[in-house]
């Protein structure tokens, strides 16, 4: 009796599997779009030819955009900030920051917000949820490289959904080996950041020895590696390579181990609180006045709150926002709108990159969307991705945006080094100017 029941369940499962497999075979093609003339674009879209099909937007229905950013937890400052950049781009569709959203090709733009949790697990969960929604045109995200690398970039890419990141900087994401066809970013590649920081440490701080300490995230690991390669190429020596866990509080022993190598500088490209704890605990353990260098993950208000009155030298690198923040559009229109609409100063710099990414995406949608004449839009997924990756010489707020076939859209990047506490974030002291700044293009770095 029991056995027979088990067999029945097994048979049912097997039958369902067959049905599911059969269904799977069917939906590769997508639907054929109707033809017709429209204001946006005319002509037929061959959705059959597109492996990933098309997104259909009925007349009057909104164009659905999604964000997959770190909007909760300790790194919420990063994702929420980028999300604000996207909202401003939607607002600016009508060429005015007036708090009322503009329209794209006669359609409203709707933003769905998912959380990337700043972790691989979060990227998996959020990416899967978004990949299951056939109406989503593209995703702006992720905040953290760990959420994208091998997780969200693959999950969304398998469905032909473009993942366009404002703040992923891990070199692996756009490397020959690991780049996913549907991935692009407006954030800088950390190869550039690592190279500029290494040059600063070697040439400006006069350091010949350095130690690195990074957590388990691909972001920190990639930066530490880029720094080490460049620092050694310049003729420097790496004394210690240490790794910690992002949840560690007690860094005493590991810093003691680093102090043994007597490095001239310590490079810790992590997130807070690890950045701030490295700084605070390093004061007592490292040789007095050893400069500690951090990255853009460290450069945020929370660091200032934790570091308190510690006095040793600390530098953080970041895309040099002063370069574009002095720009007329940013200073006179964008920033006041940000402050007015969200009631705060930007908590990170990547809202500008999110604004640019969203606008590049809007341009690409305008270029490839086909209107059937009665307001129904058809957007081919592959064509949209190709249009974004073909972006060239776009004048964005953060600079000229030209995408490489591997998805790096910020090809010339200016990285600034900011000395604590003169940081361009809420709570930082004036003047928040970079003590060093350099521009490099992707082909210059290792």
């Amino acid at each position, binding site marked *: 009796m029991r056995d027979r029941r088990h067999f029945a369940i097994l048979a049912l499962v097997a039958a369902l599997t067959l049905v599911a497999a059969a269904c799977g075979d069917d939906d590769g093609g997508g639907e054929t779009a109707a033809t017709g003339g429209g204001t946006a674009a005319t002509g037929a879209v061959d959705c059959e030819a597109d492996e990933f099909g098309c997104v259909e937007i009925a007349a009057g229905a909104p164009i659905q955009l999604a964000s997959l950013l770190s909007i909760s937890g300790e790194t919420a400052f990063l994702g929420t900030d980028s999300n604000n950049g996207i909202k401003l781009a939607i607002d600016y569709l009508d060429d005015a920051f007036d708090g009322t959203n503009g329209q794209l090709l006669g359609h409203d733009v709707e933003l769905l917000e998912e959380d990337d949790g700043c972790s691989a697990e979060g990227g998996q969960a959020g990416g899967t949820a978004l990949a299951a929604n056939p109406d989503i045109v593209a995703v702006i995200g992720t905040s953290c490289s760990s959420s994208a690398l091998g997780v969200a970039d693959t999950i969304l890419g398998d469905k032909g959904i473009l993942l366009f990141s404002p703040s992923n900087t891990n070199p692996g994401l756009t490397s020959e080996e690991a780049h996913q066809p549907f991935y692009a970013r407006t954030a800088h590649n950390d190869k550039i950041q690592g190279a500029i920081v290494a040059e600063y440490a070697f040439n400006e701080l006069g350091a010949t020895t350095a130690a690195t300490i990074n957590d388990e995230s691909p972001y920190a690991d990639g930066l530490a590696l880029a720094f080490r390669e460049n620092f050694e190429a310049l003729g420097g020596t790496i004394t210690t*390579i240490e*790794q910690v866990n992002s949840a560690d509080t*007690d860094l*005493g*022993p*590991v810093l003691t*181990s680093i102090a043994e190598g007597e490095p001239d500088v310590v490079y810790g490209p992590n997130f807070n*609180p690890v950045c701030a704890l490295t700084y605070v605990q390093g004061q*007592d353990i490292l040789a007095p006045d050893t400069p500690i260098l951090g990255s853009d993950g460290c450069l945020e208000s929370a660091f200032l709150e934790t570091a308190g009155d510690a006095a040793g030298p600390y530098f953080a690198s970041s895309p040099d926002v002063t370069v574009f923040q002095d720009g007329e559009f940013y200073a006179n229109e964008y920033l006041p709108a940000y402050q007015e609409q969200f009631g705060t100063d930007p908590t990170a710099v990547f809202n500008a990159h999110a604004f640019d990414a969203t606008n590049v995406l809007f341009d690409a949608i305008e270029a490839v969307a086909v209107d059937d004449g009665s307001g129904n839009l058809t957007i081919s997924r592959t064509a949209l991705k190709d249009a974004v990756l073909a972006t060239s010489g776009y004048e964005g707020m953060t600079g000229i945006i030209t995408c490489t076939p591997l998805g790096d859209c910020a090809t010339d990047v200016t990285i600034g080094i900011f000395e604590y506490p003169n940081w361009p974030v809420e709570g930082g002291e004036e003047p928040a100017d970079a003590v060093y700044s350099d521009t490099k293009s992707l082909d210059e770095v290792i």
Partner: protein
Amino acid sequence: MGTVTQGPTRGAQLGRLERLPWRKIILVVLSVLILAVVLVGAYRTLTLPEDQAYSGTAWRNFIILGLAQGSIYALIALGYTLVYGILRMINFAHGEVFMFGAFAAFFFADAYEASGFLDRSPVASLVILLTVAMLTSMGVAVLLERVAYRPLRNAPRLVPLITAIGASFFLRETARGFFGPQTRGFGVPTALEGTWTILGIPIDRIQVLVLVTVIIAMTLLSLFISRTRTGKSMRAVAADSEIASLMGIHVDRVIVTTFAIGGLLAGVAAVLFSLTFESVNFFMGFRPGIAAFTAAVLGGIGSISGAALGGILLGLLQSLGPALILTGYDIPSPFQLKDAFTFFVLVLVLIFRPGGLLGTGDAEKV
């Protein structure tokens, strides 16, 4: 079947083989192997060439850091072990009791730092911080017992265990909702910055404070348990709660007292921890909580001196272990294996002494 037909000799041999204490043999071989790995690692680390070896200062730092961190673990571990001794349950929410104490102290420290009181009268402000943290942690612990554990007093043992995990999540997320997810800097009085030289060794002032406070707290606790009437009834309930209640001991009251004492100690640990790492956040209870639980098991759960010993051992293991043993095997970035190393030791202790170092030696199902 085969052995029977092949005559008595073979059967007798097999019998002897079966009588050999395989379990013991495996354990002995395993322990010899592990000892060899540890000794070779330590030997290779200590005989590294001069330019690669750790200096005396580094070793001293490792030990002092380990002792300070370990004694904080010990204070929290006492909370686990006291409750376990009396109720035979693991209060997994104890880490959150600790976290609430830290936040209470943080709000006072923050205000005092802003007003300058912290630097002007460090002793008075430390006393206030300790009091506030102890009372808050005690309140949370007592409330926890009343709301989450008492109604389940007679339920199967798994039930309060699961409730404890649930309570832990509840408290942690509540703190996140109330206080926000970010890490805040904890003000340290200027009088505690820098070092004091003790017996010719410069030691961080905060670490001196930690060690002294922990010694005082432990002494008071052991006096309380061994000398007072309440302490005596706690021991009686731990030995056998039914008979204790027949002898006229108010068991519920003893249990509340136990939670309260665990909370008080967690409050002390919270202030010391926050001063050491100069920061607080809603997640801060999790890892020290797990570490302290490990320490309690390491020392022998239910045993008070075991918790103290376990905590200090664990602190030393975390800070000395990777440097002393893993460096010898040329393992890159040895400190990333800090936790793996620590829990490996825990597994070993449980294999060889299931009851913990100072426990009864019997395996106790948790």
